[in-house]
């Protein structure tokens, strides 16, 4: 019944609010970025950074990884090394 207790505490609404607020900020970047003179590189870092944070929030709470055994939490993290490698190789190319 501990599982059910966990279920009751899951902060689904708070996560949705967080995702929505971050998305509202993201959408402003193309216009605010040029108006405020934010460099293109910084805009990219910000937008990819917020996307990573949003994806982690979905994985942890909506996909329940936070409540899963450690080995299942690590399983999706492993291949991300290869994902990063592929993107890095394309960028360097």
């Amino acid at each position, binding site marked *: 019944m501990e599982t059910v207790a966990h279920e009751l505490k899951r902060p*689904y609404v708070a*996560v949705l609010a967080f995702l929505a607020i971050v998305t509202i900020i993201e*959408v402003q970047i193309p*216009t605010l970025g040029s108006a405020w003179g934010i460099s293109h590189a910084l805009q990219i870092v910000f937008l990819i950074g917020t996307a990573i944070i949003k*994806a982690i929030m979905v994985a942890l709470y*909506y*996909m329940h990884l936070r409540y899963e055994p450690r080995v299942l939490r690590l399983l999706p993290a492993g*291949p991300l090394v290869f994902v990063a490698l592929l993107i890095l190789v394309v960028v360097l190319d």
Partner: protein
Amino acid sequence: MAEAHAAHGDSEGHHTSIWPFVIALAGGFGFGGLATQFWPSVFAGIVLLIVGVGGWVRQDLYGVSFAVKQEAEDWPFTGISSRKLGMWLFIISEVFFFTGLIAAGLALRVRADFWPTPGTSDFPLNIPLTAVNTFVLLASSFTMAEAVHSAQLGKQGHLKAFLVATLALGAFFVLIQIYEYGKLFGENLTPWPNTIRPDLGSFGTAFYAQTGFHGAHVTGGLLGLAYLTVMAWKGRYGKDKSEGVEIVGLYWHLVDVVWIFLFPIMYLIGR
């Protein structure tokens, strides 16, 4: 099947088969041949695919079923549901698929003569409309999580309501995407180069490839959700029978996660 199962013993040999590996080899040869335009490799891939699928079906027909028979995995995934682990492995393969697609888009982006800049008047995509659509998909992830929660608590009414809400939000997302595609085609943003806006050729290819494959995944998810909804109405899910909802839910969240990356990459980041 039951006899064959008993004959093999309870924990022996359920998952051992060479045929998935043969099919994977077929994919390697086939797609490798297509990429390099080396036709003998494509031919080898097709032959291996036929042999692999045939072998798998034959093995299955003759009594070695690959349907999941045990509830939980052994070490190193001790105690984890086999179905859930299977879905997570599938999700990982999907992450690789979309990474390849995004990397291909990135390669196009850096090589193209022209790439439109978001926030400027000549940017062809509708950012406000797609931002709303992004909220819709995020909200559908929320309703899906609530549906899983309701199933786990045995709240039938809530389960049905949240499944219908997820289905409706997902369908809305696809309809908006279809509407946007229609409008963009009218404005000469096509997946292939066209004579009116030849400068948008690379952008169009990257845009339609990435959002199109994502849209196809959302559509596939809608089919899964429709199935869940029908089954929920038949009372299939309850406190101790909620795994089906959870597994389709994992897939649904995956399409949300993919969109979380595709939206800034295609709509918010210029070159």
